[in-house]
């Protein structure tokens, strides 16, 4: 993958107020640690050589989910020019984890950062064909202007951080 989509991704995320944190498989644990505000919940990560630390609850109750400060999930891919991550929820609970915590930390592999919506929809269509039942194109925090002014953090997270797994 060329550096260009990553640079585009980073600047698009920056405009949304989303931090992009770069790391590698080896350094993942130490990179993630300061990003975790307790209590943290998560859904298992599919990347080889990467896993969630013990203090991240991957089997929360509804109350624990609701009380979570941080929710860590993988993102199937990123869309560089929009600064979006695509959360592909499934039985492992990525959908509620990415939705209920105050902050969503999305982990995406560098090779999964796609340049644009065209490329993303090619992947999404293929995934639907392969049985993925939900792909949420998530762009920045949840937001509403319904209460008379823009508020970040409506029903969903009020902040998002993207962790980019370089070399993965």
């Amino acid at each position, binding site marked *: 993958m060329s550096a260009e989509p990553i640079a585009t991704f980073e600047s698009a995320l920056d405009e949304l107020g989303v931090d992009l944190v770069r790391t590698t498989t080896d350094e993942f644990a130490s990179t993630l640690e300061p990003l975790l505000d307790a209590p943290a919940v998560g859904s298992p990560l599919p990347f080889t050589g990467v896993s969630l630390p013990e203090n991240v609850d991957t089997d929360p109750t509804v109350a624990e989910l609701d009380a979570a400060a941080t929710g860590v999930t993988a993102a199937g891919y990123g869309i560089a020019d929009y600064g979006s991550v695509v959360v592909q929820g499934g039985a492992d609970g990525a959908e509620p984890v990415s*939705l209920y915590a105050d902050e969503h930390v999305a982990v995406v592999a560098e090779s999964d950062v796609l340049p644009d919506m065209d490329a993303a929809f090619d992947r999404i269509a293929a995934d639907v064909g392969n049985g993925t*039942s939900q792909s949420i*194109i998530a762009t920045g925090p949840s937001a509403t202007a319904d209460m*008379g002014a*823009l508020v970040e953090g409506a*029903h969903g997270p009020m902040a998002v951080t993207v962790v980019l797994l370089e070399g993965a």
Partner: protein
Amino acid sequence: MRADRRRKADRIRHLLDTEGAAVHQNTQVFNEGRYESTAALDDYEALKAEARAIKEDAIERLPELVEQVTEAVEANGGTVYVADDAADATRYLSDVVDGRSVVKSKSMTTEELDVNDSLDASGAEVWETDLAEFVLQIADEAPSHIVAPAIHKSREEIATLFNEVFEPAEPLSTAEELTRFARGYLGEKIRDAEVGMTGANFITADTGSLALVTSEGNARKCVQATDTHVAVAGVEKLVPSVEDLQPFVELIGRSGTGQDITSYVSLLTPPVDSPTFDDGELGPAADREFHLVLIDNGRMAMREDDQLRETLYCIRCSACANSCANFQHVGGHAFGGETYSGGIATGWEAGVHGQDSAAEFNDLCTGCSRCVNQCPVNIDIPWINTVVRDRINRGSDGDFDFLVEGLTPDSEPGGVDPQKRLFGNFDALAKLGSAFAPLSNWVARTDTAGALLERTLGVDRRRELPEFERETLVEWFERRGPRVSRDTARRQVALYPDVYTNYVRTERGKAAVRVLEALDVRVTVPAAGESGRAPLSQGMVATAQSNAEAVFDALAPTVAAGHDVVVIEPSDLAMFHREYERLLPTDDYTALNEHSYELLEYVYGLLENGASADALADGDDERVAYHSHCQQRTLDLEPYTVAVLEDCGFDVTTSDVECCGMAGSFGYKAEYYELSVDVGESLADQFRADDAADRTVVASGTSCLEQLDALLTRRPAHPVRLLDRQ
């Protein structure tokens, strides 16, 4: 004033007072956001064309797509029900819900069907989880905007409402506090609910997938937390494939709220496999049910209707509402029917609720055309409004008025409202007014005439009536003759004498002749009649068509000789370039379209091709405030006037409102006068601002000039007057 006009005027005044400020502020944010966000797209026009093509194809093949999606959803483990009408849909939904608790995400289609009322009646508890819909549910009000349904409510009003209804320990005040409170309150409802009801922005026939475009995250929660997902959507939401979603996803947020993309675009192929909430635990999703309820409710008939079919391409982004000056000022509680609001609502209301619902607000579309380039699927929204107006005219009972009948040699049936007839036949009135000028002007200015006109025809007596010239432009030119010989002419043109220029504002016509001649153009002024704009704006399509044919006959020799047609009045040029496509044979339309130009556009072309600005008046740094015309801006013709004025040494600033609010006859109508002035004040305020207060005011459109003349102390003029050396 007639009672129905007075009622309408009262209602509009009430909404201007109570909701106008909030609606104006919020729609402005959306409108500016859309311009900014779409400008950042390299391929905006191509994306719109692609989206349009997908919709055309989908609606063409709709029955086939309904079959295809039914197979796909059933193969995924869900069910599909196609409801014929609202009663059918609500009966089915009540059966599926079966008294269980329901949490909903925002869906205008469920508003159309009054789903909440019917579920309530069946004993089910229903909560709207979109924060704006939640506000309306508590306030027991109807949406005023199809995307931001509580756009008419200020933060202060919402705070007062919440504090009264929920009596929180600490009174709520800021938008953040209100949002947190609603999130907490609705969070409990979502946790306890058994049914999640959503709409769908798009449905893909190939896979049975839904696209939900949201920002708050409530739709995601409603689907995930519950074990029964019900999606309610019009049949027109079907597109063939998942790949077809891409242009829509790129366009819908930009076109609506001016966001490049909303926070969440959920692409779901239900029943989804996320764990549900089950007694405080995350439980398996194996038993989740999915019901797709597709709504006909008039849509299949719209598909067969050559004029209303385009409405089905609508993706309900709200661009036509946000870009509409009238909507910006009064909102969807006036500019809307039973369910839908904004320009395209006329098509939806006529199709799903019937013509009477459309008739309530259809006149608020003035045909200014500002929405036309904003629609992501290129729907000719003014045309739909015109056609429905025509049908309403024809459908109403005869309300014959001999006074108007005498003045109106039109092709319309007796049912047309006399007020519409009067304005639709303005050419006949102008001809008489000119023939009897100045007597006719003196009479028209008397209080007696004003009162009579208001009472019988709904012409607001607060408006000054046009003052007719005894000698028309055509007569003046016949007497004077051309001044540039064929041999020395750079170009030969026919200057189109629109009704206003011919009978009322002859001075701008004479200035146009002299300016063109100064640039070595041989000018003639053929006696071509009214373009059809006036009757068209009243929904008198047949009259507009016969006017169009007569105009073409008068201008055909010019066009056939390879000469050009120059038009002063932008609304008439817009007829030639846009509406004539529907009113004239294709060859005639094309010929006139290719050979007709706005006056200053033409001057610009002459200057670019060797003519010298030295032949025109020298601006000498005169400070000018220019208001282009709505239809002129839709045709992208504003920059030419600015460039020519600057070329000639004027210092130019421009307005950035969508419309002056006058819009032909609209501002004369007693029921709309106050809205017209409210809209016009936004423009006048820009020209009263510090940098503009001392500037000479110019405007291209007759209506704009009349509105500015009424609202400013400076007398405005057409820009060509500045270029005329005389």
